């Protein structure tokens, strides 16, 4: 078909746009799709691009169909093999991605293109499973725009790419008010509607409730943000920035595990000292601990306390969540500790690490109380001059012995583990606490940002009369770790996480700006949920908003938008030549006074007829009609605009 009939578009332009849509939609998926799948998708898309640009060469459709089916089966088997299962978020997204690519090849009708466009919408949504950041949103938006252009070019073949983009862009702009209204007012239903597949929350990083040598140093390599804290007043000094995570009591000779703990509504201690109010925005980690600053107080919503002083969420944190918390860093905790807990905090395996046991025994033998023992152990560790490093050597069967006496290089988990082991061997109750230590104030929005690289392990020792006392053995080897963070504590020449290198200062400034923007985005857009929706409505003045309020408001707002759009569609024909508008206004006024202009009547005739009916205004009306006729049909001389304005005034002043 060389000459398509007027305005029956061929499939070529929509096919090209669909290809662009697929490319833009799938590109951000490349981050998490398996490599082989990316290669398959890219190959298919490249083949399709070649097919579209060489319309003369089309493989026979039966062979093509068979090939597609074979390829689809092969890919499905590959996906099943790669993910180990079929029904879940990751294999689902992978399947959709391949489907979108394969669909491109078998396009024979506009129906196929529409189906592929719907697939690309699904995949744009699929992006948000992995990332809801601003750049991903921008990518998805671009993909949506191209998808709309694809649909548009299916309808009409007469548009240039520019006008297609402009028309689709206009539609997206006009759709934004709907987006805002629905986003704010659509009743948000919390939580999943049904059980989610097992991999729904995969890929969330953070602490775990076990610790073995190397687990925290691994986490420290990540620049990812763990949480943000927005303090109402001054933030606490660096030495008090201990964010409490899992407390590890049980030791099996190699790894530490969380002990059993009880839950209670109130903290197990009396708070004292200065209080810090802050809003904690926690990145999802699929765990319950909230990483509150030591030691939390009050009764924040949806939280409980454990008797090892953690603040826990009532449900695992699976989406970015906000908590308004208050902490009292100088509280004394655990003054009347349960004997069972103390017993658990002195437990050691029967054998293993003999050299450390011997050392502890020699240190405690002539000490008169646990406080003295603590001092001696700390002195001993200090005297050992251990090295603090992000790359500790691997440890064998007796990790404490090997760390203290052989390798003598370790990260915070090695220090904490060895210290607690020595204390327990000296029969002083002690335990490991994991969490984060430190935090950096973003100068742009003054929020404190705590990253995975701030992950830390420290220790607590129970002393009679003082309760649980925090001891950070890492400080013995690297005092600046506590005051100024990881970067300054590591020895020269140690490979730091990229962004922490001093030379990257300007880059850090850019990152501060970017993270402040991301934080605003997260707080206002991503974090918008049921509670925020209620707060928003209460801010509008609704006392007890429920879903009926929401639907009512939503309906009303949508109706207003529809009326505005209707107005847009109807009103535009009024625009046009200002002179014509003047004359139309005059005719309309006359029409309202019972003298409508007849369709065939010229201005002069019309004026004569009006003059006959309204002799008192005859001169004015004749003058108006004469001016209009001169301007309309006369030569287009200078002062045309001025005269038009004068005519307009004349019409306005005309009294009837």
């Amino acid at each position, binding site marked *: 078909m060389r000459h398509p009939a007027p305005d029956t578009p061929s499939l070529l332009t929509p096919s090209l746009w669909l290809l662009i849509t697929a490319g833009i939609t799938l590109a951000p998926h490349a981050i998490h799709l398996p490599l082989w799948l990316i290669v398959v998708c890219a190959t298919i898309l490249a083949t399709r691009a070649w097919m579209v640009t060489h319309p003369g060469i089309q493989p026979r459709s039966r062979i093509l169909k068979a090939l597609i089916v074979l390829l689809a089966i092969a890919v499905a088997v590959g996906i099943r093999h790669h993910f180990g299962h079929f029904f879940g978020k990751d294999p689902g997204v992978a399947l959709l991605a391949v489907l979108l690519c394969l669909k491109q090849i078998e396009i024979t009708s506009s129906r196929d293109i529409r189906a592929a466009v719907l697939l690309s919408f699904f995949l744009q949504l699929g992006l948000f499973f992995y990332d809801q950041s601003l750049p991903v949103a921008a990518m998805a938006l671009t993909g949506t725009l191209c998808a709309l252009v694809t649909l548009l070019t299916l309808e009409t073949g007469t548009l240039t790419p520019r006008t297609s983009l402009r028309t689709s862009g206009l*539609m997206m702009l006009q759709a934004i008010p709907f987006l805002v209204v629905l986003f704010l007012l659509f009743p948000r239903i919390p939580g999943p509607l049904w059980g989610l597949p097992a991999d729904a929350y995969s890929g969330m990083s953070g602490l775990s409730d076990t610790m073995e040598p190397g687990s925290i140093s691994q986490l420290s390599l990540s620049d990812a943000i763990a949480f943000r804290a927005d303090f109402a007043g001054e933030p606490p000094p660096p030495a008090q920035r201990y964010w409490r995570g899992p407390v590890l009591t049980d030791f099996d000779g190699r790894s530490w595990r969380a002990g059993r703990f009880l839950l209670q509504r109130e903290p197990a201690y009396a708070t004292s000292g200065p209080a810090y109010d802050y809003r904690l925005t926690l990145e999802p980690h699929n765990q319950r601990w909230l990483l509150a600053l030591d030691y939390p107080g009050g009764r924040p919503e949806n939280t409980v306390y454990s008797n090892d002083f953690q603040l826990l969420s009532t449900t695992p944190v699976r989406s970015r969540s906000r908590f308004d918390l208050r902490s009292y860093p100088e509280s004394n905790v655990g003054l009347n500790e349960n004997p069972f807990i103390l017993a658990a905090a002195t437990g050691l395996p029967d054998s293993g690490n003999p050299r450390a046991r011997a050392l502890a025994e020699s240190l405690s033998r002539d000490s008169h109380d646990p406080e003295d023992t603590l001092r001696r152990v700390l002195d001993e560790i200090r005297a050992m001059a251990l090295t603090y490093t992000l790359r500790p050597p691997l440890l064998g069967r007796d990790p404490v012995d090997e760390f203290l006496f052989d390798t003598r290089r370790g990260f915070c988990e090695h220090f904490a583990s060895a210290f607690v082991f020595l204390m327990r061997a000296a029969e002083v109750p002690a335990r490991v606490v994991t969490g984060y230590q430190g935090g950096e104030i973003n100068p742009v929005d003054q929020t404190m940002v705590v990253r995975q690289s701030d992950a830390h392990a420290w220790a607590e020792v129970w002393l009679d009369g003082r309760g649980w006392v925090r001891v950070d053995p890492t400080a013995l080897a690297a005092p600046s770790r506590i005051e100024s963070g990881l970067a300054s504590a590591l020895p020269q020449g140690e490979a730091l996480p990229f962004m922490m290198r001093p030379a990257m200062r300007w880059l850090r400034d850019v990152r501060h700006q970017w993270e402040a923007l991301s934080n605003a985005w997260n707080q206002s857009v991503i974090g918008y949920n049921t509670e925020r929706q209620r707060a928003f409505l209460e801010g509008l003045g609704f006392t007890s908003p429920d879903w009926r309020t929401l639907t009512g408001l939503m309906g009303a707002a949508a109706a207003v938008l529809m009326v505005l*759009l209707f107005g*847009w569609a109807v009103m535009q024909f009024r625009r046009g030549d200002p002179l014509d508008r003047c004359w139309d206004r005059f005719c309309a006024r006359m029409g309202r006074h019972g003298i409508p202009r007849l369709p065939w009547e010229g201005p002069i005739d019309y004026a004569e007829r009006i003059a006959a009916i309204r002799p008192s205004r005859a001169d004015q009306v004749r003058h108006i009609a004469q001016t209009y006729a001169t301007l309309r049909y006369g030569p287009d001389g200078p002062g045309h605009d001025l005269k038009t304005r004068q005519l307009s005034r004349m019409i306005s002043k005309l009294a009837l």
Partner: protein
Amino acid sequence: MIGIASVKGLLDRWLFRLGRPTPLPIVLGHRQIFLLPTGPGYAFAVALLVMLVASINYNLSLGYGLVFLLAGAAFVSMHHAFRNLLRLGIAGGRVEPVHAGQPIRFQFVIGNTRRFSRHALRLTGKDSVVPFSVGPEDQVTAELRCATYRRGWVSPGRVRIETTYPLGLIKAWTVFVPDLAGLVYPDPEANPPPLPDAGPSPTLGTHLDHGDDDFAGLKAHQISDSPKHVAWKAVARGGPMLTKRFAGATGGECELDWAALPMNLDTEARLSRLTAWILAAQARGRAFGLSLPGTRIPPARGESHVHHCLKQLALFGSNATSSA
């Protein structure tokens, strides 16, 4: 119980305001434009619903955002479709007579007074769909073809102008019964017997003579030539005085008489044969007269005579001879 047909009639009268034919021209107002989702529109809605459920389930704020943006785009596309038809002017154009069995073409002149293009419009009748678009402040002629089966007046019936522009999700349409009619001549008999001769003719066969029926060229002007035949256009351009020459083919006059046809032919067969004879006479340039029960048209030649005779045949037996 109300039958489906009567419900449809009710819908037509009350919702679509279809009744008597609408005199053209019309300008589409907002009350004449109807909107409904298309099949792809419903599929789109289902897809959005699935995406919404996924967003709720996985608590994806941006998922909500995407769904609402797309829903907004669908609402907006409704207004675009509506605007694509609003204030569109529809005027009737020419309708050339045809013989029964040939498709008749109704012309519609679609005018756009607004400053943007109207894209992807479709003119839809009983038998055909005509895609077209109109530029800003422009007009186009769209031809609707309708099959014809019977002689007589034929009207295009219910005509729709529809569009699924811009996204194909919403169909906007208007429906009207235009006050247009086309004439359908009887179907000429395929192999008619030769023309009847009205008595002996002075010459056998035909020869060309200077007549005044068909334009045959120009010649130098002579004083004696009729001023009616001067090629005034050429004179106006500053050319020499020329006279238009017309050729008239003469053969014997013939009389086509209804009553002279064999008795075994029924009405339609007679009309068919008369039609075929008229066409044959026209092709040979012969003058002919037509006698029908109650009417007699004296012999003549020329387009208008042929049309007049064929029209008599087309409307034979019906009362509606008055219409143009």
